[in-house]
C-alpha cells in the first residue's frame, strides 16, 4: 500500500512540476528570445512578467471554444487530447534523480527495463494527435501542416532511434536508470564517446518537436499555423502544452542518455564541495541547458524548406546514424574479444 501511495505522490509532484515547467518554458522563451532581440519580453504581469504564463493560461481557458461546423467533431475534440496525453505520459519513465534520490523513494515513477523504448514508442503515438487534428479540422492549411508533420516525424524518428542505439549499446540496457548508472561506472558521460550520436539526436529532437529551424508543420509564414490553425481556446492550449512538454522530454532524454542524468559533473574534483546538491538539480540544469539551446537556435536560424528537411533527414542523418551504430558495435565487439 505504501508503494502505491508513494507512486501517487510522485505522479502528482512530477505532473505539477512538469506543468509548471511547461508554462514557465513559454515565459523563458519569450524572455530569452526577447533579450536576444534587444527587447524586454513580458514585463507587465507580475514582477518582470513572472505571472504572464498564468495570465496566458487563464486567457486561453476562458476563450471561446470554436469547433468548425464542417469538422469531424469527435475527432476534433479527441486530437489535442491524444497529443497532450502522450506528451505527459512519457514522464513516467524519466528519472529525475537516482534510486536514492527524492529522499530515498527513487527519483522516478517507474524504472522499466525497456524504459527508453517506451519513451520513444509513446512519443511516436503523439503523431496521431497531430494528423488527426489536421484531418478533423477539414481545412487545407491544417491538412497540409499535418501531412508535413507526419512525414517529418516519421522520418526523423528513424534517425533518432538509431542515434540512441549507440549509448544503449554502451550501457547494455534500455532502462533509463541503468544507462545513467553505466555512465557513472564508466566515469565519462556518453556524449564524449558518442559525440556523433549526440549531435544527430539533438538535431532530430529539434525536428521531432517541430521547433525552428524545422518548424515546418506550423510555419506561420506559409501555413498560418499548420495543424492547429483551426483550434482555439483550451484545445489550442493543449497542443501548445504538448509541444513544450515534448521539448522538455527531448531535453530530458538527452540529459539522461548523453549527459549523465542526475550525476554531478567532475565528481572527483567537485564532489567534496557540491555533494549537498540533490541530483535532480543537476538534472534540471542539464535540461535547462538544452532548452536554452532550443531557444537560441530559434532566435538565430531561418526555416528550412520541406524538401530540404527531408533530404537532411534521409540523406545525411540516417546514414550517419547507421555508420555510428556500426562503428560503435564493432568497437564494443573488439573490446569484448
Amino acid at each position, binding site marked *: 500500500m505504501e508503494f502505491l501511495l508513494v507512486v501517487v505522490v510522485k505522479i502528482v509532484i512530477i505532473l505539477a512540476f512538469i506543468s509548471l515547467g511547461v508554462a514557465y518554458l513559454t515565459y523563458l522563451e519569450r524572455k530569452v528570445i526577447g533579450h536576444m532581440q534587444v527587447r524586454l519580453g513580458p514585463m507587465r504581469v507580475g514582477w518582470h512578467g513572472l505571472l504572464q504564463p498564468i495570465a496566458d493560461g487563464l486567457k486561453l481557458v476562458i476563450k471561446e471554444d470554436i469547433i468548425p461546423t464542417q469538422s469531424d467533431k469527435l*475527432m476534433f475534440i479527441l486530437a489535442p487530447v491524444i497529443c497532450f496525453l502522450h506528451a505527459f505520459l512519457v514522464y513516467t519513465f524519466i528519472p529525475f534523480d537516482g534510486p536514492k534520490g527524492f529522499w530515498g523513494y527513487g527519483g522516478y515513477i517507474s524504472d522499466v*527495463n525497456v524504459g527508453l523504448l517506451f519513451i520513444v514508442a509513446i512519443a511516436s503515438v503523439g503523431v496521431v494527435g497531430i494528423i488527426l487534428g489536421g484531418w478533423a479540422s477539414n481545412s487545407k492549411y491544417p*491538412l497540409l501542416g499535418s501531412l508535413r508533420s507526419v512525414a517529418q516525424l516519421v522520418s526523423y524518428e528513424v534517425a533518432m532511434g538509431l542515434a540512441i542505439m549507440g549509448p544503449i549499446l554502451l550501457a547494455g540496457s534500455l532502462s533509463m536508470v541503468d544507462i545513467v548508472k553505466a555512465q557513472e561506472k564508466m566515469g565519462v558521460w556518453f556524449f564524449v564517446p558518442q559525440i556523433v550520436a549526440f549531435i544527430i539526436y539533438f538535431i532530430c529532437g529539434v525536428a521531432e518537436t517541430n521547433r525552428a529551424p524545422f518548424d515546418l508543420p506550423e510555419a506561420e509564414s506559409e501555413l498560418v499555423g499548420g495543424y492547429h490553425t483551426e483550434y482555439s481556446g483550451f484545445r489550442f492550449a493543449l497542443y501548445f502544452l504538448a509541444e513544450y512538454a515534448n521539448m522538455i522530454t527531448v531535453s530530458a532524454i538527452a540529459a539522461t542518455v548523453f549527459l549523465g542524468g542526475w550525476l554531478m559533473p567532475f565528481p572527483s574534483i567537485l564532489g567534496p564541495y557540491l555533494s549537498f546538491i540533490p541530483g535532480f538539480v543537476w538534472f534540471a540544469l542539464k535540461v535547462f541547458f538544452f532548452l536554452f539551446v532550443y531557444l537560441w537556435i530559434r532566435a538565430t536560424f531561418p526555416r528550412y524548406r520541406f524538401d530540404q528537411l527531408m533530404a537532411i533527414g534521409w540523406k545525411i542523418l540516417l546514414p550517419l546514424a547507421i555508420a555510428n551504430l556500426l562503428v560503435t558495435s564493432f568497437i564494443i565487439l573488439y573490446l569484448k574479444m
Partner: protein
Amino acid sequence: MAEIIFWSLSVIAVIFAFMVILSKSPVRSAISLIGVLLAFAGLYLILDSEFIAGIQILIYIGGITVLYMFVISMMRFKKINIETQFTKQWLVAIVSALAFLAEVVYFALKGKEFFKVGNHSKLVTANGLGTIENVGKVLYGKYVLPFEIATVLLLAAIIGTVLLAKREKEKM
C-alpha cells in the same frame, strides 16, 4: 489482479475491433485500430513481454497506423456512401466468419491437445518470453533463416514500390 486486467483489456480490444469494422469514417476506424493495438500491448505487458509491447506501440501505432491515416487524409472522403451491395459479398463474409468462429471455439476447448504449452513454460518463467535477450536469441539463432528471408522480402517490396512510383512519375 492479472486476471481482471486481462479480461478488461480483452473486452476493450474486442469493442475497439468492432468499432474498426462498424464506423463509417475511415479515420475513426484507424483510431479504433489504435485502441485495439494498445489493448494488445497491455496484454503483452501482463505476459512480462515489455519489449514486444514497446515494439507493438512503436511499429504498429507509431508507424503503420500513422501511415494509414496519412493515406486516408490524403484522400479526403466526403462520406462513404452506404449503398446496398449487389455482389452478395456479405454472404461469403458471414460464412467465413462463422467458420472462423467455430475454429476458435474448437481450439479454445480442445487446444491443449494440439499445442503443448508446457514445453515453452521455461522461457516464460525464466525472464519473460519477450525480453530483448530472448527475442534476440530466438531471432538470430533458431529462426535466423526465416528472419533473413523476411527482410529480403521486405527489401524487394520497397524496391518494387519505388520502381512503380518512379515509373508513374515518368509517365506524368
